[in-house]
């Protein structure tokens, strides 16, 4: 496991620790509300049946309450199964059960305030249920729902106040007065019966104290269970904080280690760049050749480039020149470049005059190394040239070759398109390779370059381009090779201005003395 993964794992664990206590709290509250609801409604229906032998309000008792019981039962079974791990929860089902349970609870809260036989007691007792629902809605469905319910229940309270009458007063009777009234009722006292009818008409039926007690007990139970699970979650969160801090400290230590690792890798890349530049031929090796004036330079885009050039004087006085451009840049491209350089060298030293064969063999070796050993898909454009006497034989597909003919005074651009294909991409490129012979007489110049030069981009996104390069080249044909290289670099850097160098730039100029 690398450092990044370790750090990410520690932070994930810290996050998990913090979220763990609250993970099932909402579900637990919902289950408690569902259970209390079902039990209360069933109890209510049973009491009705025992007391009256029938259900007094068919719409309420045989339609609405059974629907409430079914909805709460579905939610109870689903959430219990998920909580116990017997069933896998889904966001859709979680949402459906939570919303349906809370919404029917809200409807009931509104109904018991406004549709009870004794509406005068609504503000004394029944409205307490709306307060409990406010807490349940907030914890199960969130703050926005709680705000909406607060506004609805406030409106409900004022409507109940209006319906009872703002002048309405609650008058308490002693037990003796209540007993006397009940006695008169049982004896059929007309005055008592008339008063009772009036009470029923005004929705002020007498209610036993036990009913108030049982209603408040149900409200208390729902509120208690919700508070119990919620406060339990808070204490658990407080409990895990030391562990989370420890994990964050570990992640911080790993961050410092990662920074050190980055610094070490940066140093390694710097060393790799130095090794790569060491492998390129120096000006001293160019000077050894008596007939050619050669200058070359490679500027990598990142610490390690994918470009390279080669200049290999042979025993027979001829020279092998190579220029390559590996896809991408960075350490892996630099490695492919080093492999290409050493492969080309070992093959051409053996048979310098057979460029096609050398390129085909180089391709095969690189293909096998890159694909099978590096498990990578990098490839390169590679051009080989063999300079012997007044001729230069070229093989391989690369960028166009710019040339100057000293005798005619003309400059030209020659395409290498038909001389090859990418090296290292397919196992056998023999059928795509071709050689071309160029004349190289005194004063003639050849310029090889990589696409980093023509594709150098300025701040407006404009490319340096072959046209600009060719114009500049034509202005420099009377200069020596080193000046041509220096001036072209100066020109391209002036062109890109403050833009970042996006690709390696390599140039090689060969002039026949």
């Amino acid at each position, binding site marked *: 496991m690398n450092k990044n993964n370790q750090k990410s794992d520690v932070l994930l664990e810290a996050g998990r620790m913090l979220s763990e206590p609250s993970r099932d709290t909402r579900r637990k509250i919902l289950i408690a509300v569902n259970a209390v609801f079902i039990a209360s409604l069933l109890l209510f229906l049973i009491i009705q049946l025992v007391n009256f032998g029938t259900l007094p309000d068919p719409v309420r008792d045989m339609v609405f309450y059974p629907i409430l019981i079914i909805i709460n039962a579905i939610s109870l079974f689903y959430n219990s199964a998920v909580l116990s791990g017997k069933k896998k929860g889904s966001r859709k089902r979680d949402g459906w059960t939570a919303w349906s349970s809370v919404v029917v609870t809200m409807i009931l809260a509104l109904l018991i305030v406004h549709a009870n036989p004794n509406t005068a007691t609504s503000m004394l007792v029944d409205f307490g249920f709306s307060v409990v629902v406010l807490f349940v809605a907030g914890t199960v469905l969130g703050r926005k729902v709680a705000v909406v319910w607060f506004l609805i229940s406030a409106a409900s309270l004022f409507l109940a106040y209006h319906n009872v009458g703002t002048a309405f007063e609650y008058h308490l009777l002693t037990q003796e007065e209540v007993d006397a009234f009940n006695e008169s009722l049982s004896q059929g006292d007309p005055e008592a019966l008339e008063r009772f009818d009036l009470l029923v008409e005004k929705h002020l039926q007498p209610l036993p104290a036990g009913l108030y007690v049982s209603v408040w007990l149900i409200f208390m139970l729902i509120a208690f269970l919700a508070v119990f699970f919620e406060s339990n979650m808070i204490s658990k969160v407080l409990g895990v904080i030391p562990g989370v801090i420890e994990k964050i400290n570990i992640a911080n230590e790993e961050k410092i280690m990662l920074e050190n690792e980055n610094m070490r890798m940066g140093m390694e890349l710097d060393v790799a760049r130095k090794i790569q530049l060491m492998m390129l031929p120096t000006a001293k090796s160019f000077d050894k050749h008596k007939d050619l004036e050669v200058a070359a330079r490679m500027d990598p885009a990142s610490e390690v480039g994918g470009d390279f050039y080669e200049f290999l004087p042979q025993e027979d006085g001829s020279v092998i020149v190579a220029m390559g451009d590996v*896809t991408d840049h960075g350490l892996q491209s630099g490695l492919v470049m080093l492999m290409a350089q050493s492969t080309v060298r070992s093959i051409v030293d053996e048979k310098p005059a057979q460029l096609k064969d050398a390129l085909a063999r180089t391709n095969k070796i690189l293909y096998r190394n890159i694909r099978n050993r590096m498990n990578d*898909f*990098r490839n390169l454009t590679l051009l080989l040239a063999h300079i012997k006497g007044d001729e230069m034989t070229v093989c391989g597909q690369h960028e166009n070759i710019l040339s100057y003919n000293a005798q005619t005074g003309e400059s030209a651009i020659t395409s290498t*398109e038909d001389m090859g*294909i990418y090296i290292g991409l397919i196992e056998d490129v023999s059928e795509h390779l071709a050689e071309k012979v160029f004349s190289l007489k005194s004063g003639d110049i050849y310029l090889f370059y990589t696409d980093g030069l023509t594709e150098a981009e300025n701040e407006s996104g404009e*490319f340096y381009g*072959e046209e600009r390069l060719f114009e500049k080249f034509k202005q420099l044909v009377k200069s020596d090779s080193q000046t041509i290289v220096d001036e072209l670099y100066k020109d391209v850097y002036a062109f890109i201005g403050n833009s970042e160098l996006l*690709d390696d730039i390599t140039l090689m100029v060969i002039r026949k003395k």
Partner: protein
Amino acid sequence: MILHAGDAKVTYDKENQDVKFEGSMRLANMKEYDQVTEFLKENTNGLAGKLTLDFTELQFLNSSGITTLSLFILNCKKKGDVELLVKGSKDVAWQQKSLANFKKLWSDIHLEI
């Protein structure tokens, strides 16, 4: 299906089995081209018949991008399920050489320049 990759846009027209490349594609490295590889793979997986790669509106593609498309073409060649039609433009510098190379990688490609 549309993929925005840097300054370029790649659109896959399912009905005509046509992948159109537009803009200028110069993603920083091979890794960044994984999104293009995935896009092509997702949309052309299991495809049979003619598949068009339309580069006429793609003004630039760097060497990492050319490698990505070369690998896609080699993969199509290996699977042998599709008949590739590659459309290009003579006026766009990178296409002259690279589209001819695609044909070298798989001679059955129909090149329309």
